[in-house]
């Protein structure tokens, strides 16, 4: 634990939450996040998942925040060296550090969210977020009056581009003539930039907005709230509360559920290294309508979207953003 604590101290003001693990027979699970767990989005979800593991599976948990590649590798190594059974590296950037560390620690499972490939005990947890954003796009394509939809992206990372493709594909399925605008911020923190970028899109006629920019996207919600006639679609969590009358639906990733499913496998001794892929069928990736807006939507549209959802789950409809297996 000492190394983890030192890592913690090195990170000014990092939230070193979670209980430190105590040696014993209980399974120990560690989580390394690339940023603060107070982001109400990506990292917060993972930390909530860790707490659920403690509460429902009675495992010992520990968490550290590690921002730079060197710190990230060190944090993974430190958990593995202490005999942690599962270490979650929360983000695709943990794939390579985990592969370097894993060779030395064959008894530890390294689960990398949005990871790229299986390598020994390193397994990627892949979210097929595009299945849910496709459904958001179907709604946006049907509801736009200006034939223009907009997407605000934090950075052009592969999982974010995947969600964007699903959103565009869904919109075109409803409305082949729809025009898609995309703005990249190169930041997940700059909410003021998120707002100005969104306002620029709204001024140019965008009336349906989706995003994947974590905290910076608060600016998008702020912009939509002050512009009449515009709808916004939440990402990664149900974001209806940010604009109760303007959020039509959200594409949700239930990180706690994914972490629970994987940890159960390890606990039961059934774990086999493979790509842990979660889509709509697993209920880890979900499409959630805003209940407050449901009455304002046409029944026909909601039925169409739900039918598409069922088709995706049954494998009858494949959203093309799907990466090759």
């Amino acid at each position, binding site marked *: 634990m000492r190394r983890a604590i030192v890592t913690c101290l090195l990170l000014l003001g990092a939230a070193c939450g979670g209980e430190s693990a105590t040696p014993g027979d209980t399974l120990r699970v560690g989580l390394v996040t690339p940023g603060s767990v107070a982001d109400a989005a990506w990292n917060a979800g993972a930390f909530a998942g860790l707490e659920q593991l403690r509460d429902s599976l009675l495992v010992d948990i520990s968490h550290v925040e590690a921002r730079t590649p060197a710190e990230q590798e060190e944090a993974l190594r430190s958990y593995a060296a202490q005999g942690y059974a599962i270490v979650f590296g929360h983000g695709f950037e943990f794939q390579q550090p985990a592969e370097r560390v894993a060779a030395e620690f064959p008894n530890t499972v390294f689960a990398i969210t949005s990871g790229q490939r299986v390598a020994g005990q390193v397994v990627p947890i892949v979210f097929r977020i595009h299945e849910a954003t496709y459904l958001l796009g179907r709604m946006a394509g049907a509801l736009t009056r200006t034939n223009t939809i907009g997407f605000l992206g934090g950075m052009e990372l592969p999982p974010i581009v995947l969600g964007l493709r699903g959103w565009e594909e869904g919109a075109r399925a409803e409305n082949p003539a729809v025009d898609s605008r995309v703005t990249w911020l190169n930041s997940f*923190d700059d909410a*003021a930039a998120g707002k*100005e970028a969104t306002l620029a899109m709204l001024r140019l006629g965008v009336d349906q907005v989706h995003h994947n920019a974590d905290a910076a996207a*608060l600016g998008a919600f*702020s912009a939509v*709230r002050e512009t009449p006639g515009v709808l916004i679609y939440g990402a990664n969590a149900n974001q209806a509360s940010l604009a109760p009358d303007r959020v039509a639906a959200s594409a949700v990733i239930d990180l706690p559920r994914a972490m629970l499913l994987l940890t159960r496998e390890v606990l039961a001794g059934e774990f086999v290294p493979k790509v842990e892929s979660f889509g709509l069928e697993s209920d880890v990736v979900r499409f959630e309508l805003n209940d407050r807006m449901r009455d304002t939507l046409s029944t026909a549209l909601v039925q169409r979207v739900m039918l598409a959802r069922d088709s995706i789950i049954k494998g009858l409809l494949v959203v093309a953003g799907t990466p090759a297996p």
Partner: protein
Amino acid sequence: MSDDAILIGFGAATVRVATPLLLAALGETVSERGGVLNLGIEGAMLGGALGAAVGAAQGSAVVGLALAVAAGLVAALLLAAVSVWGRADQIIAGTAVTLAAVGVTGLVAQRTFGSAGAGLELATLQPVEVPLLGAIPVVGPVLFRQSLLTYLGYLLIPLTWWLLYRTRFGLELRASGEAPTSARAAGVAVRWRRTAGALLGGALAGLGGASLVLAQVGTFTEKMTAGRGFIAIAIVVLGRWHPGGVALAALLFGAATALQYLVQASGLGGVPWQLLLALPYLLALVALASAVGRARAPAGLARDDQEES
């Protein structure tokens, strides 16, 4: 949408984006004229943003402004204590202040707002239209339908000029920045002048951070200043340490930023977004390169007050 509406939208966005930069850069101008290069300005802005959010969460934007100024003052006081009085290197001290501010604001924000964050229900400063001036076509809605902090920025341009060039304090401050040893020989309390300049700079940086929260987005997120403090320092250089030049440079940055959002949003293919995002910085480089012959920093900038300049 008509061309006029797009032009007005672009102009208003330029002024909104420029406001926090203008406030912080005017403050940094005063600070640097006194010889204190404040790399802690990014931290002061971040502290100001958090102070504004914490105050606004109590239901009042005015309390937010007061806390923002206080946070900016604390950051500047730290820098002044260590580098002016303790004679530590300004660059290192300023960097430390900014790094500390990133950590402390994150911690305080988590304690204050919890994992749900500050939300979007904070009290804010809505745009106020200036009577008569606001009715001028195009110019009115661009310049005179803004928040009170923008108007404060307008007022501070001549005020800063007056302070620097028309008051005894300004003269002594500039002397402390240009030639501290000579100034001391002439009876100027150099360290006190430098401290005062740094504190003024900190207060204005705090207000700059506050404008992000109260006049723009209406919430606080960790690291939300995203380097604006460092941009403000570049703006001071670009504006050649003169309030008028600084104001123009802040507007240039605002315009370049607003323009790149507009170009990205217009969906014109072919231009990589990375290049668009770099536009404000590329413009600054070009402007700096073309102004380099004439630009000169205060001779005692970032130097100890005992050093011969």
